[in-house]
């Protein structure tokens, strides 16, 4: 009977220790991921309702052909800056309208997605977009649109870790 108890205890401890080790390894990888930097790309697109050309580089983004973007008949890439997002550090991207997009990588989620904070501020004025928190998987963009510019609408797309995109 004592032997039975010992064997059971050893077996359960083995399983628990293995699970703990696995869990700690996940925690370690999570912490490691939060301190690593990831590349990002920002697409600044001027979209207009008048018929025109659509930049060929945008043809891969099928989302820009669907609502609410499907009313735009022409799209031109104004800029496409590449940057590195480091957790806790702000990355600034200038917009043609004088505003700036501030991007901050908050953390890498356990499922591998990126939690990003974005804001659009105006010099000497209150923030245009004070706060936006998004979680995005690698290579999948999120868009901030609506700013009027030169008869069109600015569409700002942010892609974290774009090399892993499946598009």
């Amino acid at each position: 009977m004592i032997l039975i108890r010992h064997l059971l205890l050893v077996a359960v401890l083995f399983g628990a220790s293995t699970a703990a080790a696995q869990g700690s390894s996940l925690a370690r990888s999570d912490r490691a991921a939060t301190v690593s930097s990831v590349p990002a790309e920002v697409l600044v697109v001027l979209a207009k309702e008048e018929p025109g050309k659509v930049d060929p580089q945008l043809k891969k983004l099928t989302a820009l052909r669907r609502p609410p973007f499907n009313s735009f008949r022409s799209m031109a890439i104004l800029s496409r800056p590449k940057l590195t997002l480091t957790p806790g550090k702000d990355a600034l991207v200038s917009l043609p309208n004088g505003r700036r997009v501030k991007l901050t990588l908050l953390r890498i989620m356990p499922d591998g997605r990126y939690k990003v904070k974005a804001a659009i501020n105006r010099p000497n004025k209150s923030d245009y977009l004070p706060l936006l928190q998004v979680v995005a998987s690698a290579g999948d963009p999120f868009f901030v649109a609506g700013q009027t510019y030169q008869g069109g609408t600015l569409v700002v797309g942010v892609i974290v870790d774009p090399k892993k995109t499946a598009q």
Partner: protein
Amino acid sequence: MESAKTQDEKLQMLFDGELAPDEEAALRRSLEGSPEGSAQLREWEQLRAAMKNASADWAGQIDSDALFARIEADLSAPVIPIDRPAPQPELREVPGSRERRVWGAAAIGFAAAAAIFLAVIAAPEGAAPGGSPGVTRGSEVLEVDFGANTGTIFEVEGGAGESLAVIWIDDEEVGLP
């Protein structure tokens, strides 16, 4: 005249001594003139004498006291109920059963450990960033503050069917910082 059956019955009663004295005397006087009746009586008397002799010989050969003592002993013996259950067989330990219990418990313990291990292994991978099998695709808004503006959040489908977040701000200023 009496029937033969009646005469035979009276003769039997005479032999058994069951007739009244006057009837017995009358019947005996009648038997003096009946050779058949007298012969019947003599035959019965011979049979009775033979049976007495035989029973006397048999009785002399047995021990009546021992016989009665045995009968009394049998009568005073405890009564055994007919439906008394059969006694339980004596239990005995099967060789090796203890060993089987030990190994069975150990197997259960290791199975539990293996189940815990596999449950953790089967959990979604945490380290691999996007693109790994099973990782949720797309983008979604967790929190937004439009400030002084108004806005709308859309979901647009990407090329792979993933849901992409669109934050649309209602711009009140026209091209001015």
